[in-house]
């Protein structure tokens, strides 16, 4: 019948959709790259430990059109009998819409397109042009591992390690030369033994000494920023060193080594003596992290409100710490304050080592520039 027909062809080479999909993915990546500053300090990512895939909200990939305000529109729906005026079809959580449009209360909302990326892809983009400045050749820690690898064949050795297959082959070869290709009349010369090596692993080590002011003046925002910074810093160092340790030091007028959780949650009142933290950091380096074999990255976050009388001591200790470190960073978080320089920052200006880097962060989006300042290629030039 000619009016209706049925066929099945080979469509396996049909790739157009996949190709345009690839272009779309590429655009997603470009958009992510443009928005790195926002994404780096995105809460959901910093707290996504262990998750492989992260969802990144980006704005540039919407298909903009003239359209009606979705929050303002009446739409037609269909009930299953007995609906009444006033029936609630759906309830949204506070401030959370159906993914679109200005929120109730006339606040301009933002339409997000969420891209899915693996953490590795994202980290790859964040770290793309970061580098480790002042990299010194440290003695690698040599770790003798338990494993033994058989790597070579010799003519002598303990009988327990006799390589029977090779021994037989050698024997047949020798016999064959004399015109009798078979196994027999074994001689010492035929014997082959396996030998082994103990494998030695070399590791490069780095330690981040994370110091933070936990005095009363450091609030949620300050802790959040330092957390975001340390998150990426440790992640980045892990891409360059086999073994990255991080120690947390919290201080007000006294310094204490604390757990990660305490570090980010704890808040105490009282004044601030940054020197206490540097003192502790120096003694830690002395006791546990010999600069000969460890790459040391101390970083200190504070709001800069240090006891003025302590500043000079800070400078001296910081100077000593810089001498033992690959890079020493001081970050001052000054959200919503006047942008005068703190006395501590002022004191630090006298330190001229290229290994000493200071950053000021006033906004979440400045975490990424701070990272770049710390690990960016220009560090050491005008530190």
């Amino acid at each position, binding site marked *: 019948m000619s009016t209706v027909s049925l066929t099945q062809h080979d469509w396996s080479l*049909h790739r*157009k959709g996949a190709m345009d999909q690839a272009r779309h993915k590429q655009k997603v990546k470009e958009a992510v790259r443009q928005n790195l500053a926002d994404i780096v300090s995105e809460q959901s990512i910093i707290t996504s430990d262990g998750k492989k895939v992260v969802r990144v909200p980006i704005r540039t990939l919407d298909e903009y059109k003239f*359209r009606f305000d979705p929050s*303002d529109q009446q*739409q037609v729906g269909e009930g299953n009998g007995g609906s009444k005026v006033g029936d609630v079809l759906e309830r949204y959580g506070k401030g959370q819409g159906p993914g679109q449009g200005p929120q109730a209360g006339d606040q301009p909302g933002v339409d997000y397109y969420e891209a899915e990326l693996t953490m590795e892809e994202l980290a790859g983009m964040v770290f793309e042009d970061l580098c480790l400045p002042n990299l010194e050749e440290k003695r690698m820690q040599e770790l003798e591992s338990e494993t033994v690898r058989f790597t070579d064949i010799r003519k002598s050795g303990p009988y327990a390690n006799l390589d029977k297959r090779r021994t037989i082959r050698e024997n047949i070869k020798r016999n064959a030369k004399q015109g009798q290709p078979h196994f027999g009349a074994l001689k010492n010369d035929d014997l082959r033994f396996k030998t082994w090596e103990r494998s030695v692993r070399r590791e490069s080590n780095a330690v981040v000494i994370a110091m933070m002011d936990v005095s009363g003046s450091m609030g949620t925002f300050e802790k959040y920023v330092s957390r975001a910074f340390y998150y990426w810093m440790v992640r980045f160092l892990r891409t360059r060193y086999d073994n990255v340790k991080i120690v947390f030091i919290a201080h007000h007028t006294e310094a204490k080594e604390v757990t990660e959780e305490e570090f980010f949650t704890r808040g105490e009142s009282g004044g601030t003596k940054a020197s206490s933290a540097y003192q502790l950091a120096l003694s830690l380096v002395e006791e546990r992290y010999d600069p000969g074999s460890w790459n040391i990255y101390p970083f200190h976050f504070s709001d800069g409100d240090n006891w003025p009388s302590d500043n000079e001591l800070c400078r001296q200790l910081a100077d000593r710490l810089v001498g033992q470190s690959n890079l020493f960073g001081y970050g001052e978080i000054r959200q919503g304050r006047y942008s005068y320089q703190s006395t501590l920052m002022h004191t630090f200006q006298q330190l001229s080592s290229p290994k000493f880097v200071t950053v000021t962060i006033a906004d979440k989006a400045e975490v990424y520039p701070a990272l770049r300042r710390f690990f960016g290629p220009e560090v050491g030039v005008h530190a």
Partner: protein
Amino acid sequence: MPDTLSRRYVDELEAGIERIWEVAQELGLRPFPTHFEIVPASVMYEIGSYGMPGRFSHWTHGKAYQVQKMMYDYGLSKIYELVINTNPCYAFLLETNTVLQNKLVAAHVLAHSDFFANSAHFARTSRQMVDTVSLNAERIRGYEFAHGADEVERLLDAVLSIQEHVDPYATLEDVEPDERKAKPPRESAFDDLWGLDARTSAPPDAAAPERSRARPSQPVRDLLLFIERHSPRLDDWERDVVSIVRAEMLYFYPQMQTKIINEGWASYWHAQIMRALDLSTDEYLEFAELHAGILQPSSRRLNPYHLGFRILEDIERRTNADGGDGRAKLYEVRELESDVSLIRNYLTQGLVEDLDLYLYQRVGDELVVVDKDWKAVRDRLVGELSSHGFPVIQVEDGDYNGNLELYLKHSWDGQKLDLPYAEKTLAYVNRLWGRRVWLETRKSDEERLLLSYDAREGHKTHS
């Protein structure tokens, strides 16, 4: 032929489809000759996301493809039917469907094919569109080679942002500038005869205006046509891209105008045809389950299959009850009506109540039913359908301020525009126009709002 499907499956389906064709003919359907192709799911959602095989490449198609693929991979949705308005008609069947599922799809598709062949709204559509879109895709590919893929992509981003703003009834004359139409209004049917002499003696179109000085005599709804003809900025190849997008949109336009009636028609007939086949009890159960799934209503979005199906059934029932020929009436409805006229003429109070239709709106953090009055429901639906859910934006002036600026006006119907979106879209229109672009809309019935965008000076709001 790949060996993915057994010979038996194909033979059974082929016999089934031939039988369905016969039944459809006996029942009075007059579809185009229809060719079915069995394809894997990936091809199905690919064609679904492009609207048609072979269309030009653009990342938005890739985005749609990714969404469809994900929905399919996670088992959230599946495209059952895909049919293309051509003569002969092309339809695609999913290779993972059972024979019975594909028979139902075939019956459904033949009714679509009949609709394409006989509805007045499709009378002017090209029936060789598959070839046309392939040629278009090739031309655009050529422009990518000549001008760079990025340049073409940026242009398409802009054109696609206003692709829905076409008007199938627009003629070239509508977008010609005012000066040309200085003719006096006709007084009698023969007026134009008196002018014949004058026309032959006048120099041929000496006063043909430059394409840029365009002030339409009436507002023009077809933004793409106006821009293609009069943009002071676009190169010829860019105008060609605009005209390609417009031509393809015009091809899809009748399908947007007849979604409810077309799906209703196909659902009505797949049920009739399947019932006319000799199905076993098991097959009948499978069919009934599928049919119910297709017609499943939704509290948030109207299911066009269900609404169309119920309206058509209602028309047939009422005609028969009045002593008329219900079936004949349906054929007439299929020939004449679009969604708008179908709703306006045949969505009765009884049906609105039966279907339990309502209007809902976001109030605070809730979606709430706000109206159940049948006329309010009907009128809202008509309003929504008459512009396919898009605001009507018209060109008022192509030489605004005497400076070749483009002045657009939103036809206010009480619904606010999404302003952040409108601003972004204005920037796209500016990419196509090259000069400042204006948009007049309203914040409310009382308050006018005038926006403009210029590449150098950015967005502005005027009071």
